[in-house]
């Protein structure tokens, strides 16, 4: 290999190489450009929408507060999410934390059970025939419709809320896991057969990793649904939590608080989705798309 890059002795090296001085001038602008291209357009849209909102909501017959009034009313809520004055008078951080804790428990439960059931119906035709029609019906029941029944069964707010999260988010996890298992390419199964990979090792080393991109799609949809369900459920069950905070603000006519809370709910939901996508990317070693 070295012989091929030999240069004639007489030739000066500066002739064959580009001048190095032109390099740094390019890099700074070129490096920032892709970031600017991604950050600036959404920023511009947000500013434009805020401006529009300000104009529309400042009119005499406006029913909702404009951004300037939201800032004035809810200034404390926006800048200090961590205050705690006892009872329900807490910063948004504490409300979000309470909601996220419920989601964590309910979603962990639905992830474990969803993947296990999904593996079962992905493998066994009999289990699929028996369970799939029932799942297809149950998964269309809206989250809040489960709440009365779950309150009656558990007689307590906390487990009821967790059950609602579980029952909402478990279906996409089951269905995606089952599809993932059924779609494991025959080639991978053949490879496993040739090297005599069987039993738990076969599941652990072939089926689960091959189905992982599908499983993570299910988990990602599931975590989104969990977040939708908990906000709605908390409005009804009360206590500390971002859902009840919104309902409480409505009852005391604090529209500005509601708007701030909605912004937080949206951002947290977005963060949960990205977090799950990132987890999928890391666990599947890049075979799942982000």
């Amino acid at each position: 290999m070295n012989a091929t890059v030999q240069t004639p002795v007489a030739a000066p090296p500066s002739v064959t190489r580009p001048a190095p001085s032109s390099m740094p001038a390019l890099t700074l602008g070129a490096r920032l450009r892709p970031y600017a291209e991604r950050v600036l357009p959404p920023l511009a849209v947000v500013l434009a929408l805020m401006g529009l909102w300000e104009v529309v909501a400042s009119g005499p017959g406006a029913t909702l507060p404009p951004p300037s009034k939201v800032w004035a009313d809810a200034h404390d809520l926006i800048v200090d999410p961590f205050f705690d004055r006892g009872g329900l008078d807490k910063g948004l951080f504490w409300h979000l934390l309470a909601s996220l804790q419920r989601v964590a428990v309910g979603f962990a439960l639905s992830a474990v059970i969803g993947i296990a059931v999904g593996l079962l119906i992905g493998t066994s035709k009999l289990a699929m025939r028996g369970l799939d029609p029932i799942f297809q019906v149950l998964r269309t029941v809206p989250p809040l419709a489960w709440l009365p029944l779950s309150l009656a069964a558990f007689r307590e707010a906390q487990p009821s809320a967790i059950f609602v999260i579980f029952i909402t988010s478990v279906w996409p996890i089951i269905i995606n896991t089952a599809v993932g298992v059924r779609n494991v390419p025959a080639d991978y199964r053949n490879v496993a057969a040739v090297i005599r990979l069987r039993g738990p090792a076969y599941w652990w080393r072939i089926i689960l990793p091959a189905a992982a991109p599908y499983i993570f799609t299910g988990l990602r949809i599931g975590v989104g649904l969990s977040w939708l369900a908990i906000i709605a459920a908390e409005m009804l069950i009360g206590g500390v939590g971002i859902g009840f905070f919104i309902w409480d603000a409505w009852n005391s006519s604090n529209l500005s608080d509601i708007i701030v809370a909605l912004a937080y709910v949206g951002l947290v939901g977005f963060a949960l989705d990205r977090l799950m996508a990132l987890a999928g990317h890391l666990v599947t070693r890049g075979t799942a798309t982000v």
Partner: protein
Amino acid sequence: MAMQPFLDISDVTVAFGRSRVPVLNGIDLKVARGEYVSVIGHSGCGKSTLLNVVAGLLPASGGGVVLDGKEVSDPGPDRAVVFQNHSLLPWLTCYENIRLAVDQTLSKSLSRAERHEWTMENLALVRMTHAKDRRPNEISGGMKQRIGIGRALAMKPKVLLLDEPFGALDALTRAHLQDQVMAIHAELGTTVMMITHDVDEAVLLSDRIVMLTNGPNARIGEILEVGLARPRDRLALVADPRFIAARAAVLEFLHHRHAAPGLAAA
């Protein structure tokens, strides 16, 4: 026992489902230890079906396969398969793909350190040491197939089964890989059964070429002994009259006496 062939495919018939016409009918083939045999035929004639029966991935409806005195009943590492589309596990690196096969098939005879050494040795054999930590989607088609071959050889198979291993590759990469397979065959003396539809490839690589008639109900039409000395050089062979004659014989069989049925009708 000395007279017994190393790989003995006797009267293998394969029929799918309730179909009365079998895909393969009465295939009889005996392969000696260290021999390189190619199976050639038109698309859909059941070449790959025959390979799958030998691999144990598909049960024969009639007849059987005996390898080194043992009847084939299920898949196993003594009959390592190189699949047409490489079949590497995408979540594992090249090293891990080979290592998984090594761990699974040689854990009783080799220590942990020896298995690592053996994995590295096979990566070196297919000249992929430089890409050992890359994943399959980061390397080219030819490299993937090299890892596939490395993985198969790492199982120390009695017979290496190649299922159109170079079919999906461009001509230059294919030639390069054919040369590597020839070199590996010369070095290790592995018994090879290769499925192909490429006449030049079959003549260049094989000791014998098994020509199948058109399916369904495909049989062995003819077996050609390629009497070319090894090592073979593809450039020198282009003008070699024995190479030209062998090539002509296979082409004559495939395109004159047993032309592809779909093409003949059109």
